[in-house]
């Protein structure tokens, strides 16, 4: 039970995913929501690489992890540009106060 196998890596990834989800749903600040998203993407990457290591699929899982890292970089750049624009328009970045589309 204590010898590290595939299950242990998957558990770490599941815990990381839940913590990221918790950050996404509870934080008001948009930058903090982005940090939660980064945690979720990292947990997905751990799963990819763990299955690539223990599943005998060659290195395809690692290639997918590399693609996820690239997409995370693009997503962070775009999201921060949007956050900066929100700040210019509303003078804060709290996601619960930006509800002008509601009525």
């Amino acid at each position, binding site marked *: 039970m204590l*010898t*590290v196998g595939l*299950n*242990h890596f998957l558990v*770490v*990834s*599941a*815990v*990381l995913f*839940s*913590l*990221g*989800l*918790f*950050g996404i*749903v*509870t*934080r*008001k*600040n948009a*930058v*903090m929501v982005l*940090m*939660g998203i*980064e*945690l979720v993407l*990292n947990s997905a*990457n751990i799963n990819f*690489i*763990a299955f*690539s*290591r*223990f*599943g005998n699929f060659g*290195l*395809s899982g*690692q*290639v997918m992890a*590399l*693609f996820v*890292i*690239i*997409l*995370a*970089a*693009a*997503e*962070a*750049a*775009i999201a*921060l*540009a*949007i*956050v*900066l*624009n929100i*700040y210019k328009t509303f003078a*804060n*970045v709290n996601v*619960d106060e930006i509800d002008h589309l509601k009525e």
Partner: protein
Amino acid sequence: MNFYDIIFYIFAAITILSALFVVTTKNIIYSAFYLLFTFFGVAGIYVLLGADFIAIAQIMVYVGGILILLLFGVMLTNKVTGVEIKSGTVQIMPAVIGTGIFMGAVVAAMFFTNWRSEPASLPAGTANELGHLLLNDYVLIFELLGILLLIALIGAASIARREKE
């Protein structure tokens, strides 16, 4: 418990504890710095899984790029009048219950499932093999991602620089 297991538990503890601090600390700057330790812990886990190139890419892209971007985002979107930069929270209790149930279910499923596990022998280094895969099997996705990154960077610059009329 051999040496590998001990290293794994250390990296797992670093990752999970600092991730916990990231989502619970009020101060956004502290959160960003705890995120640094999370990324390092995840890179350590990649090394334990034999993914040396991905670990280096993780440190270079996440720590050197995304974390700095996030810090810039924090600095540019707060009036830095005081030292404290706080983030409010909403609906703590429903979120704790909901994500707690979710985490319990997923962790139990991951831990008690009897995965078919046949570890391949570790190659000496993965960079060579990864390069072959990227430029043979996955070359279309690789090129598309290059174009996507270019478009994303141009888009980000144009969105962030737009002046009000």
